[in-house]
């Protein structure tokens, strides 16, 4: 069933892993998000597409409770596991971050701490929500590294971010995000800074993590073409509103909003395909 109707049914809202209805305004500037309605179902990969500055990261930060409530006006609700994230206290939010909802940011090398070894960063991530012996910690860390197809030997754990390739660094970030097997992983432009081959590998990895762990993924990108392949559904964000929301196939083949149509028209085609089209036209 396609869920491209703008008003969520009661049932889908109750069953959803997360359901948000949100407006956000920074200070006196015009609102960045205006009545955005979004639900993420258990175990799905949802793409959130919008051009740069459209408010995608703002939505991610609002879900993680990382927007400064004193300076930023966030209205509405974000229901996750029975509680409204917008009204939770900082301590409760902190216990969700990294444990239930994890984040992977865009540029892997700047998202890892340049002054800390990989081992330290992974241990810190583990320690934020777990207590136990360092043997417990190390075995969890190694499992997380193996789940993203990285070596887990001591030599690798001793490395600093600067000693790794961008692709490896991105995998380390993802390993950090899955240490506690979160129910929701937010990938904010997680593949935008990578070359196409690495990008494809990382997208495949996200797909595997989604299938193996049943982890839902909110996949944020400015580029519909690159993520369409892994998303069950996509939401198109334009000027602070969701203008299109539904099954990926349906959005790609019969977009209803004018912005989505322009977005699709701007998608790059394979050279052969356009060659063939030209040949046929002649």
């Amino acid at each position, binding site marked *: 069933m396609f869920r491209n109707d703008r008003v969520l049914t009661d049932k889908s809202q109750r069953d959803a892993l997360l359901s948000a209805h949100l407006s956000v305004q920074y200070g006196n500037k015009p609102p960045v998000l205006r009545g955005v309605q979004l639900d993420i179902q258990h175990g799905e990969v949802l793409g959130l597409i919008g051009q740069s500055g459209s408010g995608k990261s703002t939505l991610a930060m609002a879900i993680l409770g990382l927007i400064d409530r004193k300076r930023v006006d966030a209205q509405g609700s974000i229901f996750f596991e029975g509680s409204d994230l917008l009204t939770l206290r900082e301590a409760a939010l902190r216990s969700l971050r990294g444990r239930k909802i994890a984040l992977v940011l865009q540029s892997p090398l700047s*998202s890892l701490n340049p002054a800390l070894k990989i081992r330290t960063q992974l241990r810190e991530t583990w320690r934020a929500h777990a207590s136990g012996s360092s043997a417990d910690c190390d075995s969890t860390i190694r499992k997380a590294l193996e789940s993203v197809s990285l070596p887990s030997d001591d030599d690798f754990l001793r490395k600093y971010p600067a000693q790794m390739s961008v692709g490896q660094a991105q995998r380390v970030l993802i390993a950090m995000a899955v240490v506690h097997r979160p129910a929701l992983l937010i990938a904010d432009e997680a593949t935008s800074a990578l070359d196409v081959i690495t990008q494809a590998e990382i997208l495949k990895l996200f797909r595997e993590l989604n299938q193996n762990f049943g982890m839902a993924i909110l996949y944020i990108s400015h580029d519909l073409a690159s993520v369409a392949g892994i998303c069950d559904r996509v939401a198109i964000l334009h000027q602070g509103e969701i203008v299109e929301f539904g099954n990926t196939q349906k959005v790609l083949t019969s977009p209803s909003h004018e912005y989505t149509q322009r977005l699709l028209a701007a998608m790059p085609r394979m050279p052969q395909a356009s060659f063939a089209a030209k040949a046929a036209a002649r």
Partner: protein
Amino acid sequence: MSFWRRVACAVLLLVVAVSLGASSLAPAGYAKQDREAAGAPPSHAHWLGTDEIGRDRFARVLYGTRISLFLAPAAALISTLLAALVGGLAGYLGGAWARAAMAITDLFLSLPWLFLLITVRALLPLNVSPAFSVLVTFLILGLLGWTAAARVLCATGGSLRNTDFVRQARASGIRGTRLFWIHVLPNMKPVLYAQFWISIPAFILSEANLGILGLGVAEPLPSWGSLLKELEGLVSVGEEPWKFVPLLLLVIVVTSFQLVLSKQDEVAA
């Protein structure tokens, strides 16, 4: 490394080595009084002569160097740590915290310290033990000297707050205090090192200033400050040139430090 920086390094190492060898180079010690030869000019027995109460000036210069060269880095350490805690933390927290920290450093910079120090010294008992005076001098230097470094570290903390890796760590649910200690502070290390080294020559001079005012290290312990005090009563420069040795040494060491650091600043900046 340029020629002059090498020379400066060699000079500093030599001064440190000689001052560490004080007990064998000047076995008489800094406190032994030779009443027969009080105020004597240089001789075979006393290379730099003796002071008013017959203490070997060469020995006092060596031991004084040792104390001054120990005090300055110790004070630099405490002031850099204070700067990291106050400036770095406030900068990292940002907003009202950063403004409050900057207001406090402004206040510190504008207080009439000389007056306050003289008052503090007046409140202390006249004959404090030498060890206690060393501790007090060290604390005064360290507690007063942190403000300039705090400003620099406040800026560093502010820029670290908005980095991706701090945002990523926060999104991992890492607690505020731990975030600062484990994730933010190590990234201040290059700035902390630079501040530490830069403050050493400044503290050497400050200690000398305190000593001249009689606020520094107490008798009979020598330090560059208390040795320079001797120059007070000097009538003419040409009369007893050997009395200028501590001043010469001070100038040479501070200049060498500046020379060695001049390149490091560029690297750290």
